């Protein structure tokens, strides 16, 4: 029997999302300084009414649909401020495109946590490094679930996703919360990551990483195209390494079990330790029976996010935003003077790397991009093909860590890259490939103009990032920074 409370003491582990954390600073103020952070998150509204944005440039008429994004919005209650962005309760933002207009609306996810805390008028649970007074012990994995990492459409349903607990189903129209999702009676409250992946046949795969109480087991979920559970299995792991997401290839579910190891401790901060002399394990699970096909050891590393994976003959390619250690998580995401939010904090840079694994003998080689690129995205409709990835970050050669990020495209085989820089004062968010009705592919992302305290959208023609956005849309105010989302064409 493992233990819920112990788990919940540490469950905030999964909310890290790389460099995006930095943008969190711009949530409600223009300040990016740690010193100013304490007062930066007050007075976040619990909803944004549907309002039209001001359009700039040339919005394609064939582009219709909704961009959904999830934001850790609510960081303050009744005088107490969480000291970590990831402790904020999830808010779903929706940008509606079409008819030559762009609307925005947003709504808090009505999680059990949020409802209980609304009712109590205070935070009730420990967060990642945030300890509200008189905190309650969590009852189960969902007690402190803020559903704040991603929002994904699977089948005709929209889900607000965390990673250490359940999904919440959201109304795609008005963003109201239907409730917590149980995939099965014995799956209640179990981890369900924020990064489900779509198989070529339309199925959805996801993982849930359980690393507590000495039990390291990864739950593998397989859902059909309508998000109905087809299969579930708990796979024992060799080590209790942190896993935020996973990759998928033609034949394999690919787990990258990092060297950031969990040991039961009393406080979250004491629970994880990066084992620099240890290993990371790439575990290839055969989709057929979820048996372990091969486990490949690579040097100790740390990873949040993956690009797509694909097999070519007997070779498997996996791209990932790789960190040489877990400082980004153990220190970089804190809010002290040594955090990733500090100026010049280049020590937390990731490196978009491509692992090329021989499936016969397990030998591997790694190709480094020299790009501190995070939130890598690819075309979901063709998941196992060679394709350029898009993300945000910066070249690691950029000595001067500015406070802004670049929009980046990178080809994992050719190494070809394309970069667009909005310049100082802008914070850009996760970019997605989207398609117009005519078939034209675009890249879209939300962003904040911190100077003008406003949020908006930028649209690029795919493959022409350098040319800059072909269209933009601006609100009159700044919205909470978002992590992950999806575009649903209409």
């Amino acid at each position: 029997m493992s233990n819920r409370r112990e788990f919940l003491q540490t469950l905030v582990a999964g909310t890290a999302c790389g460099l995006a954390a930095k943008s969190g600073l711009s949530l409600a103020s223009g300040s990016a300084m740690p010193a100013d952070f304490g007062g930066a998150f007050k007075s976040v509204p619990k909803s944004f009414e549907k309002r039209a944005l001001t359009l700039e440039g040339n919005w394609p008429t064939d582009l219709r649909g909704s961009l959904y994004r999830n934001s850790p919005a609510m960081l303050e209650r009744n005088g107490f401020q969480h000291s970590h962005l990831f402790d904020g309760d999830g808010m779903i933002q929706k940008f509606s495109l079409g008819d030559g207009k762009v609307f925005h609306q947003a709504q808090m996810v009505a999680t059990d946590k949020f409802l209980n805390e609304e009712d109590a008028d205070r935070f009730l649970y420990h967060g990642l490094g945030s300890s509200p007074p008189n905190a309650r012990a969590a009852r189960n994995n969902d007690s402190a679930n803020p559903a704040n990492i991603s929002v994904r459409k699977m089948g005709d349903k929209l889900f607000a996703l965390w990673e250490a607990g359940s999904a919440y189903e959201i109304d795609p129209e008005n963003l109201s919360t239907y409730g917590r999702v149980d995939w099965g009676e014995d799956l209640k409250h179990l981890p369900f990551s924020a990064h489900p992946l779509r198989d070529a046949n339309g199925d959805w795969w996801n993982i849930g990483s359980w690393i507590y109480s000495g039990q390291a087991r990864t739950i593998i979920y397989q859902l059909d195209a309508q998000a109905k559970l087809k299969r579930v299995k708990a796979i024992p792991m060799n080590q209790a390494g942190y896993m935020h997401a996973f990759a998928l290839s033609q034949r394999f579910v690919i787990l990258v079990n990092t060297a950031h190891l969990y040991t039961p401790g009393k406080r979250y901060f004491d629970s994880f330790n990066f084992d620099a002399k240890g290993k990371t394990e790439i575990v290839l699970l055969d989709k057929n029976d979820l048996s372990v096909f091969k486990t490949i050891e690579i040097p100790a590393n740390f990873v949040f996010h993956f690009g797509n994976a694909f097999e070519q003959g007997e070779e498997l390619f996996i791209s990932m935003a790789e960190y040489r250690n877990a400082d980004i998580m153990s220190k970089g995401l804190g809010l002290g003077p040594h955090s990733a939010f500090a100026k010049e904090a280049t020590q937390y840079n990731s490196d978009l790397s491509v692992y090329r694994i021989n499936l016969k003998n397990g030998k591997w080689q790694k190709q480094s991009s020299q790009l501190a690129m995070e939130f890598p995205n690819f075309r979901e409709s063709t998941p196992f093909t060679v394709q350029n990835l898009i993300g945000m970050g910066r070249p690691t050669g950029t000595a001067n860590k500015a406070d802004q990020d670049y929009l980046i495209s990178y080809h994992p085989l050719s190494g070809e890259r394309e970069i667009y820089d909005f310049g100082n004062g802008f914070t850009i968010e996760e970019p997605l490939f989207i398609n117009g009705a005519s078939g034209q592919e675009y890249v879209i992302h939300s962003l904040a103009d911190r100077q003008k305290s406003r949020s908006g959208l930028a649209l690029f023609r795919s493959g022409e990032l350098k040319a800059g956005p072909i269209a933009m849309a601006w609100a009159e105010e700044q919205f909470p920074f978002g992590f992950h989302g999806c575009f649903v064409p209409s």
Partner: protein
Amino acid sequence: MKITKPCNPFRKSMLTALTLGSVLASTLYPTLSFARQVQTNESQHQLTLLIKGYEQKQGVTYLSLYDNAEDFNSMNGKSIANVQHQIQGDTLSISFNQLSKGEYAISLYHDANNNRKLDRNLLGIPSEQYGFSNDVGAFGPAKFDKASFKLDGDKTVVINLR
């Protein structure tokens, strides 16, 4: 996939009826209680049972407490409470401290040989000790109207094993 607790934004209307009280404990491991404030319920009474007449000092007493005739008479397992208690002395006493006012009845037996059942002979007749509240049951299984007693205050009920 099952959606639990469907609700519209903030589910405020539901929460109104479900106001939570909180009981707080240690700081390091705060003990959680979702319990509503424990109401001072004057209709909760203590029922103390004293079982006598054990012929053997070992074994386990199995006891069931019922609050209605249907469940008691059919012995359908829908008892308010069941107790299994090792016997080490000549009597057994336990108390249910929070029973509502009402009619109750008790059945019990003594599994002297620890085989987890009331042994019966070839004819189905108990070969281990048993008993009912009001000490009824002399002519077969007692019915609720014979075995039941009223609880409207703290009470001690003595049952003599057969």
